[in-house]
């Protein structure tokens, strides 16, 4: 069957994919080909910077920038090919008036390895049957019908999967810890707060393949002995919220969530909790407080959520992408997964590639892929007439990798050694026009605004650090101010209560490490 898949994720929708889908629908029904051409709104197809994106089946071609005015000619071309006799892909004789057919041999596509995103862009995320047809909830069923929770835990541990929310904590170990906790009622939380500015991996997964995340949560619940789950999602993600609500409803009605799943004694329900604009609520103890209807202020750990989480119950918290890896790991086996990526960082990582880069969007690559590959080959480097100066990873908790270190492999430890972190997957490319001191001030302003205000070093320290950076920017700072900046930065990292304060000075310290000259050039003459 001929098929058209049009991206209906937030990025392409903003670029007019809604109108394109509407025009295609009209054209198909006018040509009375509704039963021969299947039109599907799907999740992210990758190169968002070129949307709206349209994929053609069975050819596998990908078109970029197609407008609604092209719908008629496209459907006509498809009709001609259908009349010629077969669904077999004789190349389609069609070229859009606007937009282009993308060369799928480009590194942007060739270098990807899609595991988390394997079905994103293939299925209609609002149609549970399509998800089931490609295997959704199949691993949940298999596990419930023959596996002990211990076996799931062992498999996860052997896979080497580490948390994709930033810290890289071994997932299997976290699950095993929660599983060991006493208590009949435990909770699984999916962290979909995705607060790092410049990051949209989790949004793409939730918009494109929400059932994969729900399945991951249900399997986690079975493994740790939980019966209830929460998804905490940021309010800014209106479309993802809508898709998730629908997905949960559908899964419940189809017996994929709820009591006595697949005829077993195991039941699991999921509730959606929408944030209200607070970055710090991505931190797990703040997230718990927010789920409980309180101010989203972190509290000291221990006790860890595994011991005392939502409502005092043992709680497992995992990131969206972490949970999206669960089903494929069980399907293909731990060894398969462990063989992808590097020894310490197994599997793939999804990055949102943005900033000063020619080709931006969502990419999934094996861990250990170098930044050169991602930024210069896949992203095709900085725009005409400019050059890459650095790449920012890890958002407000991360740092910069300077251009001469782009050969660094993307794995947890290598990035850490450079003074940044893998983070959740935001990757912002900075070209020569970027003022690194201004960038440091930008991130400090972010942390200053997002500090919950509970502990003194973060609440008052970020304000003072931001003030010092502003002084340097204004050219009225002295050498002593620079020293003050470094000492106070170290103090805030050492003494803050939660990860926000503990990493707030990192983007600044990282630019000081690699672009110290930019700072010195701005100091007042002594």
């Amino acid at each position, binding site marked *: 069957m001929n098929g058209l898949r049009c991206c209906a994720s937030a990025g392409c929708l903003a670029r007019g994919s809604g109108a394109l889908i509407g025009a295609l629908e009209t054209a198909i029904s006018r040509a009375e080909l509704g039963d021969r051409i299947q039109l599907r709104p799907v999740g992210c197809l990758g190169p968002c910077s070129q949307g709206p994106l349209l994929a053609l089946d069975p050819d596998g071609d990908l078109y970029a920038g197609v407008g609604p005015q092209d719908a008629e000619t496209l459907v006509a071309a498809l009709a001609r090919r259908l009349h010629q006799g077969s669904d077999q892909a004789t190349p389609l004789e069609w070229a859009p008036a606007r937009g282009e057919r993308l060369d799928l041999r480009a590194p942007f596509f060739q270098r990807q390895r899609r595991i988390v995103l394997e079905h994103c862009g293939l299925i209609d995320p609002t149609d549970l049957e399509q998800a089931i047809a490609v295997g959704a909830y199949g691993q949940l069923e298999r596990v419930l019908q023959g596996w002990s929770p211990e076996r799931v835990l062992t498999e996860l541990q052997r896979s080497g999967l580490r948390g994709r929310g930033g810290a890289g904590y071994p997932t299997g170990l976290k699950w095993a810890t929660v599983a060991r906790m006493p208590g009949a009622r435990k909770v699984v939380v999916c962290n979909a707060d995705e607060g790092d500015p410049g990051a949209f991996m989790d949004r793409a997964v939730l918009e494109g393949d929400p059932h994969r995340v729900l399945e991951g949560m249900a399997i986690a619940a079975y493994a740790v002995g939980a019966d209830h789950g929460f998804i905490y999602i940021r309010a800014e993600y209106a479309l993802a919220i809508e898709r998730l609500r629908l997905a949960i409803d559908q899964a419940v009605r189809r017996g994929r969530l709820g009591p006595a799943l697949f005829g077993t004694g195991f039941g699991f329900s999921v509730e959606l909790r929408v944030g209200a604009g607070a970055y710090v609520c991505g931190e797990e103890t703040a997230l718990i407080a927010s789920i409980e209807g309180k101010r989203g202020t972190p509290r000291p750990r221990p006790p860890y959520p595994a011991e005392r989480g939502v409502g005092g119950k043992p709680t497992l918290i995992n990131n969206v992408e972490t949970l999206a890896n669960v089903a494929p790991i069980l399907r293909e086996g731990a060894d398969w997964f462990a063989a992808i990526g590097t020894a310490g960082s197994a599997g793939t990582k999804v990055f949102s590639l943005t900033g000063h880069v020619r080709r931006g969007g969502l990419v999934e690559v094996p861990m250990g892929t170098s930044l050169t590959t991602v930024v210069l080959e896949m992203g095709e480097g900085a725009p005409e007439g400019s050059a890459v100066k650095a790449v920012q990873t890890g958002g407000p908790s991360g740092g910069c990798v300077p251009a001469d270190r782009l050969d660094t492999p993307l794995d947890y430890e290598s990035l850490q050694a450079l003074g940044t972190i893998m983070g959740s997957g935001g990757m912002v490319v900075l070209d020569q026009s970027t003022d690194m001191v201004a960038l440091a001030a930008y991130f400090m302003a972010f942390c200053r605004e997002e*500090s919950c205000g509970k502990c003194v070093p973060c609440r*008052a320290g970020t304000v003072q650090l931001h003030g010092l950076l502003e002084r340097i920017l204004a050219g009225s700072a002295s050498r002593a101010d620079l020293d003050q900046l470094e000492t106070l930065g170290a103090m805030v990292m050492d*003494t803050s209560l939660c990860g926000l304060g503990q990493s707030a000075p990192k983007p600044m310290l990282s630019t000081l490490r690699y672009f110290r000259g930019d700072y010195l050039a701005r100091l007042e003459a002594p």
Partner: protein
Amino acid sequence: MSVRTLRIDGRDVASGEGTTVLEAARDAGVAIPTLCHLEGLSPVAACRLCLVEIEGSNKLQPACITPVSEGMVVHTATPRLREIRRTVIELLFTEGNHVCAVCVANGHCELQDRAVDVGMDHARLPYRFPDRPVDLSHQRFGLDHNRCILCSRCVRVCDEVEGAHVWDMAWRGEHCRIIAGLDQPWGAVDACTDCGKCVMVCPTGALFHKGDSVAEKHEDPSRLAALLQARRARQEAP
């Protein structure tokens, strides 16, 4: 109750399981500075003044909530910690408007005492001179936000001990502020029982008796602390 033996600043200490490092240190005669902590109230570990070094861990731990464990070796007054405490106090002084010379709590202020303890004679960071209000709407008490260090002791005592929950922390980050009711004048909040416990536990001159003038606030939080301690002990008794 089983006993844990540990070393604090070179002294051997034996403490019951579940004791905090702060309590163990106090029993051993080692003073660790605190501000947000008040015995009998739930701990929040927010001021970070009581951070200590524990051998084998490179993360500093707040003594007020860290339980003792067997063989623990604690340092409470290393040069690094002294420097940190001084900076914490400086951050607090520069954040508000603390003019001791005209304050009701002059001479009886925990912030002032801590500043003396840590040897903060001047601030290396710039003063921020925030514009903050004073609430004199309550018949007997006043609240001067300029002197508030956001320790939340008033919030906790009103909720956990008096059960009135007049106060709460509102807004966030540098905009955090203690509010009464729906951010109303204190005097307009019906829930207030006029008990004065919040005034009693306030470590600075932020909450005060209206009659008091300079240096007249003689609240002794340790008196209330002893009371709360006794109350907690009663509650915990089987």
